[in-house]
Each structure stands twice: as structure tokens, then as C-alpha cells.
């Protein structure tokens, strides 16, 4: 009796779970929304990376258009993707390059209504035909940046070559008090090791990846930490001598340090990651017109500059250049000439990066 009741309960739970699991992800093909410029059709549910937009830009938008902007945050593309798939509805998301490709393939994005985004003409030429969405059918660049190395000149010295050797050459790193920190991110960290060895960061040969694994293993004694959250603080606190991290965070942290001249951010000559975050509207959006209006709003010359002067990432907005801080302009001018590469999705090979990083740490 007791058992049969338990069984029935278990079956019920199983049935509910199966229904819940099969929901989401099987939406029909997206139907393009028909909007006009400056049209709003409800409050904006904005799903963004944390500390990525000046709160005053949001307030100004709310006042201008009379809608509320509800912002929630994610810390990885994968976390954002799984939220969307679990059926939570957002009107605007900011996925990175490779994730746009995945979301287009899976039919998760609504086509942009370009009539509603006249400021699209402000977009710099470099961002008009990205490889993951060549006709800007579904996405438009938000900000871009690089992944490189923050260096403490007091601990490393002034005479160094801008190279991944600063983190991977044990003969070099053994002299650095505190050691170095690497991102706890399989694609970025294995990618950096691949670049140092002379391969592409999108290389999909297992032997090459094994070489990269052995490289990290050999360098591990001087790798103090694998950290994706606090590397900028560790660097300016003198906890580590060299930190692997994202351009905007590094520049902000260095600018706020007690002695900014003591630090610098470099792009290794072997090649670094260039990434582009993009605004896109998920198929489940309840207010696509508001979303397009918001995209248009951020592509405005002055608003784009406010965004960039606040988060210190690179601006894809050509018209905003006259309003930018000189510091940002100078920095990203260097980026344009640097040897960089964009991470692309490697499909089923992707799982190897995670396993090899786990193996390298063992």
C-alpha cells in the first residue's frame, strides 16, 4: 500500500518533469516584429552582463519613452542561454560573438526590424559584417574588448616582451613575486596556451590541445590562481604580478589604483582574443519594439559615448568617437593594430577545452 502510493507519486513527478523538460527550445520559427522608430510596446526586460551599462542611461531612456527598464544580470553566455531555454522571457540580451551564432542556429533570436533602428548607420564599418551574423539580421554590436594581460611593472620590471611567456614560461614567472593569475575559463585559458604555442585559439587538433595542457601543467607552480572574477583586484593589490583578463575591467582597475603608472595592460604579440558583445532580441520577447528602440537609443552618438566612457570597453559606434575620453580612444587604437582572433564555436569539440583545463589543473 505504502509502496504503491510512493510509486504513483514517483510516476507523477516523472511525468511532470518530462513535460517541464520538453517545454522550451521547441518554439516555432520567429516571426519578425513590425515596428517603427521610437515606438514602444511595453516595459523592457533587459538581461545584461553586470556592470556593463551606466545606470543613468537607463534612467534617461525610461524618462524619454515612459517605460520601465527592468535589468537582470548574468555572468556567462551559457548561464544566459539556459535561462532563455528554461522559458524566462527577456526583451533584450547581450550575447558574445560565438553565442550569437549558436542562438541563430537554434532559432532563438528575432530578426531585427531595421526600420526601427535608423541609428544603425552609426555603426563602424568593422562591425557591419561580423562572421557570426554577416548581414546583421539578428544582432548588432554593443561593445567589444580584448583578453590580454595586466602587468605590475614594479614586480615584472619595465623590460619585457609583450608575450604569453609572461604567464607560461616558468623560467620567467619564477621571478615574479606572487606569481600570475589566469582566467578560470576553458576557451580563454586553453586558447592563450594555444596561441603561445603558435596555434590558433580555435584550433581543433587534440594533439595541439594536449601540448597546451602540458604547457599549463609545467607552468602551474607559478600560477597562483585561476580566477575570472577578482583578477583585476589581485593585480592592483600586488597579490599577483601578472593577471590574465578582460580589457575594460583591467583599464578601470588600473585607473583607480593608488599608483596607475605601476601597471599596464598588454596584448601578447602571439595573438589575443578579440570579442564582440551584441544586442539581440529573443523570440519570446513581449516588447520587441521597445527593444529595437533601446538598441537605436544606444546607437545614438552621445549615448554610445556615455556607455563607453562608463564601462571602458571599445565602442562599435563610429559616430560617438568625438565624445569619447581620449584614454579609451588611444587604448583601442592600439587594439586595432594588434594580432587578435575571435573565438568561434567548435561544436562537439567544445567539451575538450573544459576537460583539458581540468586535466592541466590536476
Amino acid at each position: 500500500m505504502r509502496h504503491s502510493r510512493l510509486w504513483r507519486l514517483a510516476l507523477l513527478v516523472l511525468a511532470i518533469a518530462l513535460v517541464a523538460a520538453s517545454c522550451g527550445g521547441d518554439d516555432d520559427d520567429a516571426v519578425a516584429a513590425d515596428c517603427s522608430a521610437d515606438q514602444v510596446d511595453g516595459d523592457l526586460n533587459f538581461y545584461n552582463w553586470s556592470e556593463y551599462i551606466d545606470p543613468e542611461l537607463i534612467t534617461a531612456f525610461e524618462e524619454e519613452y515612459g517605460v520601465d527598464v527592468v535589468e537582470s544580470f548574468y555572468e556567462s553566455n551559457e548561464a544566459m542561454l539556459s535561462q532563455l531555454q528554461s522559458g524566462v522571457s527577456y526583451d533584450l540580451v547581450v550575447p558574445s560573438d560565438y553565442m550569437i551564432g549558436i542562438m541563430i542556429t537554434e532559432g532563438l533570436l528575432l530578426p531585427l526590424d531595421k526600420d526601427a533602428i535608423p541609428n544603425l548607420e552609426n555603426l563602424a564599418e568593422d562591425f557591419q559584417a561580423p562572421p557570426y551574423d554577416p548581414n546583421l539580421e539578428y544582432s548588432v554590436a554593443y561593445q567589444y574588448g580584448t583578453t590580454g594581460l595586466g602587468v605590475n611593472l614594479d614586480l615584472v620590471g619595465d623590460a619585457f616582451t609583450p608575450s604569453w611567456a609572461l604567464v607560461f614560461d616558468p623560467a620567467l614567472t619564477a621571478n615574479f613575486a606572487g606569481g600570475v593569475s589566469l582566467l578560470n575559463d576553458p576557451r580563454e585559458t586553453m586558447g592563450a596556451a594555444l596561441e603561445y604555442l603558435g596555434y590558433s585559439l580555435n584550433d581543433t587538433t587534440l594533439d595541439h590541445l594536449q601540448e597546451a595542457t602540458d604547457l599549463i601543467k609545467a607552468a602551474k607552480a607559478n600560477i597562483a590562481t585561476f580566477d575570472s572574477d577578482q583578477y583585476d583586484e589581485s593585480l592592483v593589490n600586488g597579490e599577483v604580478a601578472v593577471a590574465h583578463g578582460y580589457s575594460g575591467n583591467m583599464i578601470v582597475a588600473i585607473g583607480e589604483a593608488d599608483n596607475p603608472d605601476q601597471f599596464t595592460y598588454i596584448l601578447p604579440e602571439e595573438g589575443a582574443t578579440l570579442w564582440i558583445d551584441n544586442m539581440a532580441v529573443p523570440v519570446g520577447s513581449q516588447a520587441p519594439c521597445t527593444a529595437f528602440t533601446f538598441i537605436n537609443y544606444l546607437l545614438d552618438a552621445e549615448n554610445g559615448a556615455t556607455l563607453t566612457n562608463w564601462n571602458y570597453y571599445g565602442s562599435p559606434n563610429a559616430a560617438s568617437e568625438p565624445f569619447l575620453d581620449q584614454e579609451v580612444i588611444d587604448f583601442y587604437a592600439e587594439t586595432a593594430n594588434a594580432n587578435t582572433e575571435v573565438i568561434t564555436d567548435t561544436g562537439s569539440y567544445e567539451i575538450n577545452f573544459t576537460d583539458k583545463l581540468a586535466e592541466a589543473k590536476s
Partner: protein
Amino acid sequence: MTAPTDRQAVTPELEAAAERAASRRGVLIALPSWAYLSLFFAIPLVIVLVYSFATRSSTGLTQLRDWNLDSYARLWDPLVGEIALRSLLLAIATTAICLAVSYPFAYYIATRGPTARNILLVLVMIPFWSNFLVRTYAWRVLLGTDGPLSQLTQALGGEPIRLLFTNTAVLIGLVYGYLPFMVLPLYAALERMDWRLVEAARDLYADGWTAFRKVTWPLSRPGVIAGSILVFIPTLGAYVTPAILGGARTTLLGDYIVSQFLAARNQPFGSALSIAVMSVMLAATILYFRSGARNL
């Protein structure tokens, strides 16, 4: 004469009715917890179980068809074994240290007067007033290169010590975090112990050590078992402490499972790993309880 026969005829029915009513009341009382457990425990668990038999698509989405055991086959990969063994050793070390530190302390509390006892218990619980994450970050400051510990050794003429981002730091953080979970059950067991039994042992010429070994220890075993389980299980899957204090320099089970979901987008394998860890924990707990069941 009729009354007794009436009673005989009615009693079983009445009893059954009363039983049914009690059972109905029981169901009503338990309803909130049933609903809560089904919604937030059973259903998610079943979803994890279902996902563990699914396939990762080439874009990293989970395909709920072509059910297979591939994810479970990967559990035999040497890398997984290595990670599991490392997590196991860390959990055993943490549990052993917690037990060694907590037992004398719980013994001390249990043998104080009521006022001192209450004060000491409050002291044990004070850390819970602030968030675990905040406390772990505080350890980061304490163990850092410029931290108080390092400054102390330098003031005493020693070398600066580097504890942050070492396995020792992880162990310190885990022992610190889970110590109260060991102290409280031990205290509860020792406190309700009948101390006259120890006196009796001493009267029968047992020395202090023998009295402890033959009387106190066996009687406190329920506390030892409960405390060990409360410490061992969370440390086996520990994620936050190794990441913050250990700098994620070695891969542990918690970190490995998270990376399957948030980096590799391999939900089937992440789910299979979770199911495997949960099964092992459940089996170990059942065995542990069985072994000490007579004292519980």
C-alpha cells in the same frame, strides 16, 4: 448483557475510522513539506536524471531524444577518477580535523553549568549571523600576502608566509566553515548522556581512558555519525571555498560539475556526474547509519 457485544461489534470500525482521520490529518499537516520537497527537490532531481541520458547537440544544447548511457560511460575516464579521489581525500581530511577539534570542545561545553553552556553555544552559532561567502572572503584577507598572519610571522622575524591559493588554505576554510555542524550534534549527544554511567565505570576501577573508550565514546557515537555526515557531504561537493581560497588551482568535483554546465555546455555529462556523486553519498550515508544504527 447487550453492551459488551455492542462494543465488540463497533470497536474495529471505530478504530479504523479514527485511524483514517488521523491519517488524513497527517496528510494535511505534511502537505506543505510534501509540496515543497516535490517542487524544489524531487522534480529537479528527476529532470537531472532525465538529462543524464540525453545527448549534447553540436551547439551544446541538450537533445531530449536518442537516450543513451554515454555520459555514464565517461564516468570511468581516469580524469574523473582522479578528481573524485582528490575531492574524497579533502572531504575525509576535513571531517577528521573537524571531529578532532570539535570533540574536546563539545565535551567541554556539555560538562559546564547551564549558563556557561548557553553562552558557549551562542558563541558557536555567532558565525551564522553573517553570510558564508562574506566569511570566506574574510579568510582571503587573513591568509593573503599582506594579511595579519603573514605580518605576524614577519614581526617575529620569520619569512612572510603564503597560504592563500594553497590546499592548506582550502582545508582551513572548509574546517572553519563546517566546524559548527560537527560541534552541535556532538554536543547534543554528550549533553543527553547519562553521566552516572561514567561514574559507575570509574567505581568499577576503569581508569579515565577506559571509561571514555567503553562508555562515553559509544554513547556519543550518534553525534559523531550525524556530525561526520553533516561535514563530509557538503565538503565532498565544495565549490565556493576551493574557488575563493584555493584559487581553483586544482579541479574538485564541485568545480568540475559546474564547468560542465557553464563552460562545456554539456548538461548530460554534468547531470550524470551529479547523479553519480549523489548515489555514492546516499550509499555511504546508508552504510554509515546501518553500522551505527544500534546506537541511534
